[in-house]
């Protein structure tokens, strides 16, 4: 199973990025082979449609689940149509989130838990 985690930096010890569309990086982890891949998302450089673009990237990568903080309505629509499950991350690093995910301790999200453009606001904080 291939899982994506939104991350602030490029390694497993990095804190997760709570934003989906505007996250800095994705850690793609193949849970069978333990292979990892890093994708630069550069979500902050996009003016609009960040969530859409990011969701599209994951669809192309054949991801089955994504672990992140919050997902807006547009991104959620694509992820659901593509059958990618969304899991609510805990405030910690990528590694711990993966462990919890494998232990079945992360909650599945099926409705958007952020407004449109929310990723921009969180950047302001």
């Amino acid at each position, binding site marked *: 199973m291939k899982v994506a985690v939104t991350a602030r930096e490029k390694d497993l010890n990095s804190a997760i990025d709570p934003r989906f569309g505007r996250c800095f990086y994705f850690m793609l982890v193949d849970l069978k082979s333990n292979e990892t891949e890093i994708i630069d998302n550069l979500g902050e450089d*996009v003016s609009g*449609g960040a969530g859409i673009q990011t969701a*599209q990237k994951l669809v192309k990568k054949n991801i089955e689940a994504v672990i992140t903080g919050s997902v807006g309505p547009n991104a959620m629509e694509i992820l659901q149509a593509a059958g990618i499950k969304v899991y609510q991350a805990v405030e910690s690093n990528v590694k711990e989130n993966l462990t919890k995910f494998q232990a079945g301790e992360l909650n599945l999200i099926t409705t958007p838990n952020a407004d449109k453009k929310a990723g921009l606001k969180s950047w302001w904080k």
Partner: protein
Amino acid sequence: MIITVASGKGGTGKTIIATSLALCLKKGIFIDADVEEPNAYIFLKPEIKEKKPVFLNIPLFNFKKCTSCGKCADFCQFKALAVIPGQVIFFAGLCHGCGGCRMVCESGAIEEGKRLIGEVQAGQINQLLDLEVFPPNKAFARHKDSFTGQRLIFRQGKLNPGEALAVPVVRAVKEDLPPKNSYPVVIIDAPPGTSCPVVEAINGSDYCLLVTEPTPFGLSDLKLAREIVKELKIPAGVVVNRVMAEDDLVEIRTYCQEENIPILAVFPFDRQIAYAYSKGIPLIYAYPEGIEVMQAILKQIKKEIN
């Protein structure tokens, strides 16, 4: 001669200047291009005779032909499309109607659809000197000749509430104008700000009148608006509105000198004008001296562009 009235900052008096400028024409066209919130009609009280819908071209997908290759989504600069196997998700609110997706589709799976986003309304302004609303005064008597036989066409664009794309409506309201020889002057009231709809409103004009006010915000946004007209290579002049004292003008004058743009007129911060505004009465009726000022502005612009 197309004159666009723009400002950068909102609330400087674009509309009240633009409408009175139009009212001082013998024959002309007034276009309200502030399509998100057109309000010049309040002053001009036109009789709307024609309404024309404005559509945006959108893609329609034929899933029998679609191969889910994803080229359309890759091409879309506005992220209005997402392709997942067997499906294309279209976000109508993000689509700018460029038609690029249709062009890059290799399987001919995208057809042209339409989405209604607004309307262009056209009519005539004909009750200008309604003496019951505007009691005659000496100033008007003096200018009686300039107002007799006046013919003014009114146009406005209206963007439907909730729509994000004003540009296509701005473009539509400026299209298919009556011939130049019968209506030699066109006054366009631009939207506030310095974004795409403003650029679309100003583009193609012969002259741009920048209305500002003596506040730091007014000057700051004047500079931004000036950058647009510079980029578009359109000559510009400044009108300063709501001036209380000569001192107010110091910074604006310095800037205009540096930029080598003329200050064409200065309007006072006047209670009469403010009152008229609140009642939807054009500036020149409350402030008849304005008639001569407007005529001087028009004359000066004519001189500058020739």
